[in-house]
């Protein structure tokens, strides 16, 4: 985004003179929305970021929590929406590259990736092409760098037909004392290691800070191609260096290139620096401006004490990674940039790195009333057909087509694999039985209809998923994807989503250790896509052998629903798929109930009373039961009228309502009484719906009548193959 007149005046004031071309380019790259969060900083301060186990909160390239004594989990989320719209394969691939490098900056070993994709309708030709290539890009890059993609979230909606949202998250592991976070000091050397710098990706950050043009040729400068081989070498080399403790500080060269990376370090630590651009290893002849703002991929900035320089160079040489020593830090607090002995930029670092914030206005659009309406719909005559429609809907059906393209086992940590449970469970592989659970969640329909509640519900859903596999939720990161912040009716969604996340995190006592914002997700007509609050959460498990998957395991065991079902069909998958309506009041967030239910599950797991657990979310109660049945290939016979309800008067409300704070549990036959007692003690309502039966059927009854009687094999077919059919 080109600088405004006001911004240029400010720059002149800061420098006390007219800026050089190089200085202007640096300010433009740094101050563009993507890098500096001009519009969002104020609101993001709503988020709770502190807890005793938070080691590093928002502000660094990644956040870190102490999951177990001495063991840190580093994680972060990032978006690559605009590049993926133009070049889905490389856009998604370089998104993976970038997020992994962010994790590396703290010296952590990347051990898992998540992909959170908000894609168009597979039946639309262009959207289908985007979907295919986004998944292939993530697959080709993630697989090559040897980091397993273990979980994710996928949503299909026509508003993303041309503007997909590609959010990626990475989790890293490092021992607390090895976290790379030493204060850089005057005299420290600045090394750039990795790919040579080229003309690719000039002003990529600026590209992400404006709506996509209809003239795609104009967008070409901002598309980069990743080199996963270089990324893998960087991972290997950094892990070796971190082990030896010879590196002080690491930064990734991402948005804003060299300019952003150096100025951020300088501003954070009150330092100055002298940089010689001609020392940087280049792919081709570049002007100083191009060198300063190029966003060539797979480059890291390393800060090394002079005494360790030789050792660092030796390891770089072993892995055959190109590098250059381009300068040093000093006390001047100014960033002085030389090109062949000519001074081309001289800027006070603090001013460059921390510009003023803009207070954006917001107000709800008329469209927001959709989230307040009461919906009247006819009861489907054929409930079985309606049920099958929901199960085969791309938002519900198995995502096997996607996750089987990802190597989810490399690293041999993945205990609960994609499709098996509510979250991925990874063992630490440190000789103990300890592990972590990871999940990502969002619901564009919810955040579109009611951004506050919708975002709060996404936090709750992530929380439930972590609890269901047996982990204790520890922290989240969030990615907010919204429209044009200069338009008050778009910015309203962003503001409400932030507040929704902040509220639910406060209620659940979950800190937010990092996050990102992606604005300008709108088409050339200025219409925003459905805004999304993507939540990625991490939990800890003391014993991964006790982790719970969702597949039914034992014929004869009881199927129990925990939590109350209210008639909350607004924004539900059922309403969308069967009735074609995307309106209504979405389910009310229920933090108190969420905490109570989590306590219950934790207690029951301690007593070893649970065989399987699955939370209830998209598609409602009926869908959750069917999913557990299909995963375990064991049938069920349940009476839905046994479910605890409040004012439910229709069968579809019971089956498909997406009320929050509910789980389906498979309870061993002999443990039912124990379970009932615990639920009573905690004051939670439950219903014993029926049993797991090895009869090859899914049978639902209601008030004495059999309303669903389906062949399990058929349901399995429908559930697992629906997405395949749309994509192949």
């Amino acid at each position, binding site marked *: 985004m080109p600088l405004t007149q006001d911004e240029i005046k400010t720059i002149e004031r800061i420098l006390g003179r007219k800026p050089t071309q190089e200085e202007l380019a640096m300010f433009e790259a740094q101050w563009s929305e993507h890098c500096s969060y001009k519009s969002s900083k104020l609101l993001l301060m709503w988020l709770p970021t502190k807890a005793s186990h938070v080691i590093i909160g928002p502000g660094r390239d990644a956040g870190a929590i102490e999951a177990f004594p001495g063991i840190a989990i580093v994680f972060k989320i990032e978006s690559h929406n605009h590049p993926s719209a133009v070049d889905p394969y490389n856009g998604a691939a370089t998104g993976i590259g970038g997020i992994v490098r962010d994790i590396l900056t703290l010296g952590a070993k990347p051990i898992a990736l998540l992909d959170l994709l908000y894609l168009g309708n597979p039946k639309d030709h262009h959207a289908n092409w985007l979907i295919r290539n986004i998944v292939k890009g993530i697959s080709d890059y993630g697989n090559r760098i040897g980091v397993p993609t273990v979980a994710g979230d996928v949503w299909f909606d026509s508003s993303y037909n041309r503007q997909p949202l590609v959010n990626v998250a990475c989790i890293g592991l490092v021992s607390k004392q090895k976290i790379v976070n030493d204060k850089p000091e005057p005299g420290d050397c600045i090394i750039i290691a990795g790919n040579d710098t*080229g003309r*690719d990706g000039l002003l990529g950050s600026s590209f992400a800070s404006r709506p996509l043009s209809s003239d*795609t040729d104009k*967008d*070409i400068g901002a598309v980069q*191609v990743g*080199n996963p081989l270089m990324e893998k070498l960087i991972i290997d080399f950094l892990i070796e260096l971190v082990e030896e403790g010879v590196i002080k500080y690491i930064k990734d060269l991402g948005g804003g290139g060299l300019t952003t990376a150096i100025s951020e370090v300088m501003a954070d630590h009150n330092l100055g620096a002298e940089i010689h651009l001609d020392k940087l290893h280049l792919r081709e002849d570049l002007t100083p401006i191009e060198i300063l703002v190029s966003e*060539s991929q797979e480059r890291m900035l390393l800060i090394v004490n002079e005494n360790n320089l030789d050792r660092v160079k030796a390891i770089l040489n072993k892995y055959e990674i190109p590098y250059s020593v381009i300068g040093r830090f000093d006390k001047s607090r100014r960033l002085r940039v030389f090109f062949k002995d000519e001074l081309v930029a001289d800027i006070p670092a603090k001013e460059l790195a921390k510009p003023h914030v803009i207070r954006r206005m917001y107000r709800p659009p008329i469209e927001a009333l959709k989230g307040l309406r009461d919906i009247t719909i006819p009861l489907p005559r054929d409930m079985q057909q309606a049920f099958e429609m929901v199960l085969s809907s791309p938002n519900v059906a198995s995502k096997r087509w996607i996750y089987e393209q990802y190597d989810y086992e490399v690293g041999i940590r993945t205990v609960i694999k994609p499709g098996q449970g509510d979250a991925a469970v990874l063992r630490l592989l440190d000789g103990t039985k300890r592990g972590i659970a990871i999940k990502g969640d969002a619901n564009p329909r919810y955040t579109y209809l009611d951004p506050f509640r919708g975002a709060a519900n996404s936090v709750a859903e992530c929380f439930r998923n972590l609890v269901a596999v047996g982990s204790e939720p520890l922290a989240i990161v969030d990615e907010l994807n919204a429209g044009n912040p200069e338009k008050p009716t778009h910015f309203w969604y962003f503001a409400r989503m932030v507040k929704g996340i902040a509220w639910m995190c406060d209620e659940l006592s979950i800190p937010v250790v990092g996050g990102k914002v992606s604005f300008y997700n709108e088409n050339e007509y200025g219409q925003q896509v459905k805004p999304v609050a993507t939540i990625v959460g991490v939990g800890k498990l003391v014993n991964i052998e006790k982790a719970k998957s969702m597949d039914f395991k034992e014929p004869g065991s009881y199927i129990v629903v925990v939590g109350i079902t209210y008639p909350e069909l607004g924004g539900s998958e059922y309403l969308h798929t069967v009735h074609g309506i995307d309106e209504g009041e979405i389910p009310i967030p229920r933090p108190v109930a969420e905490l109570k239910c989590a306590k219950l599950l934790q207690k029951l797991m301690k007593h070893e009373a649970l065989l399987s657990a699955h939370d209830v979310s998209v598609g409602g109660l009926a869908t959750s039961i069917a999913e557990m049945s299909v995963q375990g290939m064991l049938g069920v016979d349940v009476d839905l009228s046994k479910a605890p309800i409040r004012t439910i008067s229709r069968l579809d409300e019971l089956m498909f309502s997406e009320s929050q704070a509910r789980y389906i549990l498979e309870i061993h036959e002999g443990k039912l009484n124990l379970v009932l007692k615990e639920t009573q003690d905690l004051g939670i309502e439950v219903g014993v719906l029926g049993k797991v039966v090895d009869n090859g059927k899914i049978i639902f009854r209601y008030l004495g009548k059999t309303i669903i009687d389906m062949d399990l094999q058929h349901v399995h077919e429908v559930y697992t193959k629906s997405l395949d059919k749309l994509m192949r």
Partner: protein
Amino acid sequence: MMYSIEVLITNRKNVRDPEGETIHKNLVLKHGYKNIVNVRAGKYLLFSVEAQNAENALELVKNLCLKLRIYNPIVHDIEVRLHD
């Protein structure tokens, strides 16, 4: 008449080509071929086309490759030629 039309797809000039770079650096140069200055990698497709004449065949294939996104014009260059 049947025409054989070759399609060569490579990355555009200012877009990285890690495959070509790796083959050049880790294979060709490592084995001492210092006078090989650069290597580009790409994809080769051969279309057998029923058409009135060669121009029509070339035109058809060119349009098809664009329409079906056999190459992505954002990042790829395409060369379409008659195979003899």
